[in-house]
């Protein structure tokens, strides 16, 4: 491997951007495909599928066989609201491989006792989120029910291109929320990305079941190709 290629790969990894090293196995010839260049690559289909699955592997046949080594950053989940659902969601999300952070300015909720093993930031989203550097490999889950807390987080998540943005609340609550967010100048196409009412429709009846519904929806958003995702949403 060329040292320059390896250095460029490490730059992408450090910046939490997807990158794939393509090695032609017969010749050893290699190239780095950055996330933004995947669609224009001759192997776009194979590479896109591998990145979405987060799985490296061999593609092609015979002389054309290539190894695709996929480097995607670990997915993160930012949960706004140190509430009962979050207490169930945080350990489940961690078990499925997410780095979880809880944000809630209400110090009665945001305590280490309520969230053992999960970092809790007892700050308003405006203060906490810049340090978390939201990105396309981050899921935003807003659960406080309080527009003052949830909405700045939703706005930041949409602007950062988070792969999943979801908010707790009934259809009526959400309709009002959409009006307020639209008034902030967020385009409809972005607002339509918010999953609300949050979670898969599995008839979840209590906080742990709602957490399962949310986590299932987050996983689908990460793993399923975009058209299927929109149909499912």
């Amino acid at each position, binding site marked *: 491997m060329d040292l320059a290629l*390896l250095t460029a790969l*490490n730059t992408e990894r450090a910046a*939490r951007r997807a990158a794939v090293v393509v090695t032609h196995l017969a010749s050893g010839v290699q190239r780095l495909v950055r996330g933004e260049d995947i669609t224009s690559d001759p192997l776009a289909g194979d590479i896109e599928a591998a990145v979405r699955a987060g799985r*490296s592997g061999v593609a092609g046949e015979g002389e054309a066989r290539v190894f695709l080594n*996929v480097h995607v950053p670990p997915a993160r989940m930012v949960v706004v609201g140190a509430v009962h659902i979050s207490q169930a969601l945080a350990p489940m999300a961690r078990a499925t491989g997410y780095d979880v952070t809880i944000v809630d300015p209400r110090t009665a909720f945001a305590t280490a006792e309520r969230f053992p093993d999960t970092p809790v930031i007892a700050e308003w989203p405006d203060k906490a989120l810049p340090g978390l550097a939201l990105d396309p490999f981050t899921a935003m889950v807003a659960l406080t029910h309080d527009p003052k807390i949830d909405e700045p987080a939703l706005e930041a998540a949409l602007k950062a291109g988070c792969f999943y943005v979801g908010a707790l609340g009934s259809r009526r609550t959400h309709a009002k929320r959409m009006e307020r967010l639209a008034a902030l100048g967020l385009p409809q196409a972005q607002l339509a990305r918010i999953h609300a009412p949050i979670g898969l429709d599995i008839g979840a009846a209590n906080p742990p079941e709602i957490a399962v519904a949310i986590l299932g929806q987050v996983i689908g958003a990460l793993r399923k190709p975009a058209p299927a995702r929109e149909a499912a949403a």
Partner: protein
Amino acid sequence: MQPEIQPAPSPASLAREDDVLEAAVRWRAEGKAVALATVLETWGSAPRPVGSHLVIDDTGNFLGSVSGGCVEGAVVTEAMDVIDSGKPRTLEFGVADEAAWRVGLSCGGAIRVYVERID
């Protein structure tokens, strides 16, 4: 003389000491010859997933793993040859392979490992 421009320090979580690919670049910067081993394919119960890396320097120091300890010794030996020749090679280890049994892939799986020099 121009002052040397130092890159901004990365957050600790992104440039960990045990990050294999960061170590490969660091070792090269220290003037060592370095080889990189990568798991290409696995069959059965292989302990490390496809894409896992082991980085080896010219004195046999290594970091990372391709099999959770089963075949690292053999890979390091092969890596010395790759560092000398500069020619990448693909190694196979599995239970059907007498040599692999000797180096101890006792988990019952099989793996194919690509070894290349960092140039």
